[in-house]
C-alpha cells in the first residue's frame, strides 16, 4: 500500500487541550508515602478537545517528564486518559511528549512531538479571581497540525470531524477549562480591535512623520 505517501499541500489539524489541574492537599488525602512538605495535588494531562475523539490509532503513548526529584521522572502513559497525578510543593516545567506509532507498515511516519507546560499550583491569572476552594486550572488550547500528512494519518484524522467545537459552554464553572467556537470569535473580535488601534496609531505616526519632514525642509531652506 502507498499509505505512507504524503499528501502534498494539505494540512489537517486536531484541537487538543493540555495543562494541569491543582488543588490543595487536604489531610485526608495524604497517605503514608506522601512527603510531609507536599502541599498540592495536581494532574497534568493531554487530551483532544472533543470527548469522542480517539487518537489511539495515531498515538502509541504519551510520556510526561516531571522534575528530576520525582521517582521515575518520565511517566509513560500507554492509553487514554493521558494524565499523571502527583503531589508536590513547587512549580516546574513538564515536557509532554507524544509518541506516534512507529513502523513503516502503519505508514504514520511522524516524529515524536514535544509540548512544554509550566505546571501551575497557584493562581496565575490576575484577572480571574482565585477560586475559594483553592483549585487552579491551567488549561491551554492548541492544535496539532499535521502538515502534509501521510495517507494513513489522513485517513485516521478524517474518520470523524474532529474540529466541531461547541458554540458555547454551558457550565460556568468550566469556563476556564474548556474552549468553544464562541471563544474563538471573541478572540477574533479582540484581535480586530487591536489591529484597528494599531492602524490608527500608524495613521497618527504617519502624519507626525510628514509634519516633521516638512519642518526639516523648512529648516534647511
Amino acid at each position, binding site marked *: 500500500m502507498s499509505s505512507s505517501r504524503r499528501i502534498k499541500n494539505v494540512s489537517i*489539524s486536531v484541537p487538543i487541550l493540555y495543562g494541569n489541574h491543582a488543588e490543595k492537599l487536604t489531610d485526608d488525602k495524604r497517605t503514608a508515602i506522601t512527603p510531609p512538605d507536599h502541599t498540592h495535588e495536581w494532574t497534568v494531562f493531554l487530551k483532544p478537545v472533543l470527548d469522542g475523539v480517539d487518537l489511539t490509532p495515531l498515538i502509541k503513548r504519551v510520556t510526561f517528564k516531571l522534575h528530576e526529584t520525582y521517582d521515575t521522572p518520565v511517566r509513560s502513559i500507554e492509553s487514554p486518559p493521558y494524565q499523571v497525578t502527583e503531589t508536590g510543593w513547587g512549580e516546574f516545567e513538564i515536557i509532554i511528549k507524544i509518541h506516534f506509532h512507529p513502523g513503516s507498515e502503519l505508514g504514520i511516519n511522524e516524529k515524536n512531538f514535544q509540548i512544554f507546560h509550566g505546571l501551575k499550583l497557584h493562581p496565575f491569572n490576575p484577572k480571574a479571581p482565585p477560586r475559594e476552594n483553592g483549585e487552579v486550572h491551567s488549561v491551554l488550547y492548541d492544535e496539532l497540525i499535521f502538515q502534509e500528512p501521510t495517507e494513513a494519518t489522513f485517513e485516521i484524522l478524517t474518520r470523524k470531524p474532529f474540529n466541531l467545537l461547541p458554540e458555547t459552554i454551558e457550565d460556568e464553572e468550566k469556563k476556564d477549562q474548556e474552549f468553544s467556537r464562541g*471563544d474563538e470569535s471573541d*478572540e477574533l473580535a479582540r484581535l480586530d480591535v487591536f489591529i484597528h488601534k*494599531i492602524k490608527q496609531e500608524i495613521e497618527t*505616526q504617519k502624519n507626525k*512623520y510628514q509634519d516633521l519632514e516638512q519642518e526639516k525642509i523648512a*529648516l534647511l531652506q
Partner: protein
Amino acid sequence: MSANDVLDVLNIQRDTSGQPAKKKAKTSNDGTTGLRQSGMARELYNLLGPNTPPVNLQNTANNTGIKDKWKTKATPWTLQEFRPTAEPGKEEGVKLYHWVRGAKELLQQESLKQPYFFKKFNTNVDIPELVDEKTYDKFMVEIKEHVKEEKKIQRQKEKQLEKERKAKEKKEKQRQERLEKEKLKAKEAKEGKKKEVKEEEEEDEQDEKEDDEEEEDEEEDDDDEEIEDNEPEWTYEETAYLFDLCKAFELKWHIIHDRYHHENERSQEDLKEQFYRICKYIYANDTNGNPTLIEGLGAFSKIKETERKQYLERLLRRTPAEIAEEESLVIEARRFELAAKKMLVERSNLLTLLDYPQSSQSVSQYQSSQGIANLYSNLMIMDKNQKKRQQSTAVDPIPPPIPLAASSSSRKERSFQTHLQQYLTGLVKQNQQQNGKHEMSAVQALLTKRLSVKDEEAYGLHYHNNEKLTPGVVLRSSQRLHGLQQRQSVLKSVNTILEELDMATAAGTSWKPVMPTRKTMAKYDELLRSVITLLDLKRGRDKLESEIQLIRSQKGLE
C-alpha cells in the same frame, strides 16, 4: 598593506637602523613616481614603507580626452528618399525616407555613378503572363476533360472495391442460406425432394435480379455526383483578376484570398488550384518550359490540401484532456513495447540456457577422474560456442527511449496543475489500473470530493496553495509565520506597544492568542505585521526628530 603590517604579522621588531635605508629607497624611487602603478605593482610599491610618497595615479602622458572630440566637426547626414522602384515616373503611395551618411551634394553625385543601393532587394516573383482568351478557353476544355477522366478512373476503382465487397457479402449470405436450407432439407426429407429443387432455382434467379437492380442504382448515383461537384466556372476575366492579384501580392495566398472580391465565392484552395493548373498549361505550351517546374505545378491536389487543413484544424481544436489522453496512450504503448522486448530478451536467455547438455545419462560415467575431465572439456567447448553465438547474433535490443516531445510537454502541462491536482490525477490513474479490484479508499474519496468550507473546518482540513510546507507535526501556537524574521524581538516590541496602547495583555512574557486556531493565528499574523510597520514608522520619526534637533543646534550656533 604597508610594510608595517607585514612586519607586525611576522612579529618582527622594527629597528632604527632600517630607516636610513628606507630613505634611500624613497629618494631612489622619486624619479619613477610619475609612472602609473596599478594592481600587484602598486601593492609591491606600498611594501617599501610608510614614508614613500603616494602613487601618482594621474596619467599626464597622453591627453586624448573628450575635449579633442568636441573640436572636430560632426559628419553630415542627409535624409534621402527611399526609392524602391527607381523609376521616376512610377512613384505612388507612401513616400519613405532614410538617413544616409554624407553631404547632400556628394550623395547626389554618387547616386548618378552607382546603382541605387537598395535596388537589389527589390525583387519580383516570376509569374507567367496570362495567355489570350482563345488559348485560355482551350486550356479550360482540356482541363475539364482531364478532370472528368480522372474522376471516372477514381469512380471505377471505387466501384470495383464496392463490387468486391458486395460479392463477399453475397457469398456469405448464400452460404448461410444454404446452411439453413440444409437444415430445412433434413426436416422436409419426408415430404419429398422435388419441391426443394424448384425452390432453389427460384431463389437463385431472385438473387441475380437483385444484382442487376443494384448496378443500375450505382450508375444513377454517378450522374448525381457530377452535378453536385460543379463549382462556378472560371471565366477568362476572373482568371485574369486572379493573376493580377497573385502578381500584386507575390503569391502570398492568405492575402490574395483576403483581397479576392469577385462575384463567385472561392476558397483559398480553389484559387490555388486554378492558378497552378493554368500556369502548368502555360509552361507546358511554352517551348522552353522547365519540366520539373511543370511536374511540381501538377502535384497540387485540392482535395488533399483541404483535407490537410481539416486535420490541422482538428489537431488545434483538441482539448487539453484529449491531448493528455493521447500522450498517456503513447507512453502506455511505449511501455508495452518495452515489456515485449524485455520478454524477448529473457526468452532468448532462457533458450540459451536450455541448450546446455542435459544430464539424462547416469552419473556413473563421470565418477572417475578421467570422466570428470572429459565433462569439463566438453562444457568448456559448449560454453565457447555459446558465447560466440551470442556475440554474433544476439545484440541486446536497446529499448527505444520515450519520445522527448511527449515527456517534455507533459512536464509543461504538469506545471500548470497544482501539486494537489497532480496527486489526485495520480490516484485516479492508479485506481484505473487496479480497476475493479478496489473500491476507492476513503482518503481518495474525501480528497476527490469537493468539500464545503464548513466541512473543511469540521475536519480541520486546509489546502495550501503555494506555501511550502515542511511535512511533520507542529503546534498551531508555534507555527512559523511567513516572512517574519527576528521573531523574539518582534514579539517583545509587540508586547510593549500593546501595553503602551493600553490593550489588555495577559500578564506574561509574550502575548499570544489564548485560543490559537487557524483564524486567530491569521489575525495574529496581521497584527504582528502592522505592529512592525508601526515600529518602522516610529524609528523613522525618531531619526527625523534627532536630525531636526541637530540642524537647530547648528543654526543656533551659527
